[in-house]
């Protein structure tokens, strides 16, 4: 079966008890057991819940993985993956990553003795050079946030294999519609399910997906032991979101490409960062690695720095000024003040997060409406 058909049916089998075509929302905290010392499939909702499991099974299938774990947030998922590391261990992360991941690595993991080095994952030689004898994990995003850099996932996975370390990737921006990193050799795929998977700005969630049973067992142990699980209502909404995932991502990507092409020809914009443009340094790689589209996130830079970017962000009517991304409503944000404010200013400068950047999350609205909105805002 094809992707969209699986998104609707795998893991979402009708309820055997009532025949309900949509599985019920199991809000129960605990499950009655067949006997003392004999355990049913579910025992306590932190350890497993049927509604959460349905979402996990659908997502695992869509990512081409065997196993998925759903978390309360994307950060809870990333944190769970990082808890595989211990004192003295080292992680090499890409330099175009979400500010919250940067914060977790630099301001939380450092306190338990995990060291981190940021290196450009687009430059494979430099990235590999950052690996030390203590390195246990590589962590990347592609497309990166906020510069939309494209990393060769298969090449980084090959480096990880050769150096005997784990490789994790935050696949939030591409979604499994466009990139399935496990098929390219990655060990762990992480998602903020809040974004494209849920897709409607109405739930918080995260997920890890893996192929290796041993790795899954270690992650499941950590999830169950620390408890940051996704709730049943969120799992239901996330599963509902997956049913239209491919339609949404392809349509939003199509609109984003049209906007990027229009913006690239506009004199009021100094740079357009979108992998779908031929001028983007990752364009050729994105064409190979992404399945027929380039995603619905794009970043632009306006001359005039912080004040000019602020003016644009505050002038749009359809693009709403908010953090987050990946939903049906288009959003606009200033990375310096919002998604990447937790970077130290020196780190921002080092990693190209300049004051004039504006990040657009392209929603489901009609292209013409979004274009007119930006046109008006840039004119102010």
């Amino acid at each position, binding site marked *: 079966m*094809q992707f969209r058909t699986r998104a609707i049916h795998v893991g979402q089998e009708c309820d055997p008890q009532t025949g309900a075509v949509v599985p019920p929302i199991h809000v129960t905290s605990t499950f009655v057991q067949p006997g003392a010392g004999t355990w049913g499939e579910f025992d306590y909702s932190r350890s497993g819940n049927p509604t959460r499991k349905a979402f996990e099974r659908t997502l695992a299938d869509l990512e081409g993985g065997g196993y998925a774990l759903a978390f309360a947030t994307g950060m809870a998922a990333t944190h769970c993956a990082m808890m595989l590391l211990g004192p003295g261990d080292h992680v090499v992360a890409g330099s175009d990553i979400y500010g919250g991941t940067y914060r977790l690595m630099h301001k939380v993991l450092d306190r338990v003795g995990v060291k981190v080095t940021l290196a450009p994952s687009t430059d494979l030689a430099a990235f590999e050079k950052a690996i030390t004898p203590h390195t246990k994990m590589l962590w990347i995003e592609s497309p990166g946030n906020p510069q939309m850099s494209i990393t060769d996932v298969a090449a980084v996975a090959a480096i990880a294999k050769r150096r005997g370390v784990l490789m994790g990737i935050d696949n939030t921006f591409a979604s499994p519609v466009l990139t399935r990193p496990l098929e390219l050799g990655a060990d762990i795929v992480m998602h903020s399910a809040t974004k494209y998977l849920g897709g409607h700005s109405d739930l918080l969630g995260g997920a890890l997906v893996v192929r290796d049973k041993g790795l899954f067992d270690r992650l499941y142990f950590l999830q169950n032991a620390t408890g940051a699980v996704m709730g049943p209502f969120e799992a239901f909404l996330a599963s509902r979101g997956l049913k*239209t995932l491919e339609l949404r991502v392809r349509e939003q990507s199509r609109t984003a490409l049209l906007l990027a092409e*229009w913006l690239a020809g506009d004199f009021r914009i100094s740079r357009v960062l979108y992998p779908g443009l031929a001028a983007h340094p990752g364009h050729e790689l994105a064409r190979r690695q992404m399945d027929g589209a380039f995603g619905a996130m794009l970043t632009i830079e306006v001359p005039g720095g912080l004040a000019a970017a602020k003016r644009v962000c505050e002038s749009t*009517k*359809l693009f709403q000024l908010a953090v987050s991304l990946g939903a049906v409503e288009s959003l606009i944000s200033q990375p310096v003040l919002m998604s990447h404010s937790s970077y130290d200013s020196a780190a921002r400068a080092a990693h190209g997060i300049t004051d004039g950047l504006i990040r657009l999350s392209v929603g489901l609205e009609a292209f013409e409406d979004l274009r007119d909105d930006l046109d008006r805002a840039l004119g102010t």
Partner: protein
Amino acid sequence: MSASTQPSSEPVSSKSAPREPGLSTLAVHAGEARQKAAHAITDPIVCASTYTFASTQAVIDYIEQKQDREEYGRYGNPGEKVVERKLAALEGGEDAVLYASGMAAIVGLLMTKLNAGDEVVFFDECYHRSREFCAKHLSRFGVVTRQVKACDYAAMAAAINSRTKLLVSESPTNPHLSVVDLEQFAHLGRQHRVETLIDATLATPYNVQPLKYGIDYVLHSATKYLGGHNDLLAGVIVGSREQLEPVRKLRGIMGAINSPHNIYLLERGLKTFELRMQRHNANGQAVAEFLAGHPRVEKVYYPGLASHPYHDIARRQMRGFGGLVTFLVRGADWKETAAVVDATKLARIAPSLGGVESLIEQPLVMSYYEVSAEDRQRFGIPDNMIRLSCGIENAEDLIEDLRQALEA
């Protein structure tokens, strides 16, 4: 790169005349406040049964209609108002009244508009419960229901008299998918000063907006394409504010309102409305064409096929033809037909339609099991009829499933 991804060469419209927002833009934003409670991007689910007043004066201001606000859950809910505005915008109507189900909506309208001694005229191809309500229950209140052959406008005109208050039809009809000429239907109403109601559940506002043809009321079972995920029940009537005012008032008294949780799911479902409909339309057309070419299929009812008796009017009037496809299995008795239904693996056997999951049913068994053979013949429900609601799965998967079921 496909042609559709080429940048538009048309001039930016902010420099020319204002343009109507696109349907998907309306689906995502229409009816919602720009600034919502707590600055949230989505509307809250307001579960409150009642709403507090700051003072006695505030109560008086509300009663004297000096302040527009909520009072008690049965009379209105903030989420309900958002969805009503969104549905009205999608239909190109002034106002919409939301109900607990499609049946609650039609009952709400009929109970508002008809008095003892009044008459209503139906086209006879229609949802069997609508027919049952009029024939068995409205009759108890002294309302006369007349049924004429679907799309026979002369017969409908002949059935109208001075007591007639409402003309009712589905378009397309269920399960025959006959398409009503909406201009002619509306004209008939205006000519005789009788109001008109079209149940456009199978069409949806993506494919046709009946109000633009002069129809007075559009009805939807929002359980179907509008909700779209087989996970809520809802009904709605769209029309002018003036004509719907007494309908809304009676709803407040009869109480067939929808629930806050359902309403939120409906609002959420509407966000992907255009995408889903494009897919339902494409799947319906592809499946109908496949079935029309299959030797085991005797007949396909789908307005998108040139062989369909209403193809021309459907093409003029509709943007697409929906996801519902009805067909007859060649020379099959009811058991052989049931075997085809039972052999499908992707489509689930269930009533309802319009959701992302494909559903299949045999009308004889599902809706007409207790109806006599003569009546089934009268309603045009042969034993070998199958109704398939195409979901948004890949068309290739649906066709492959049907092929193996027909050839099993």
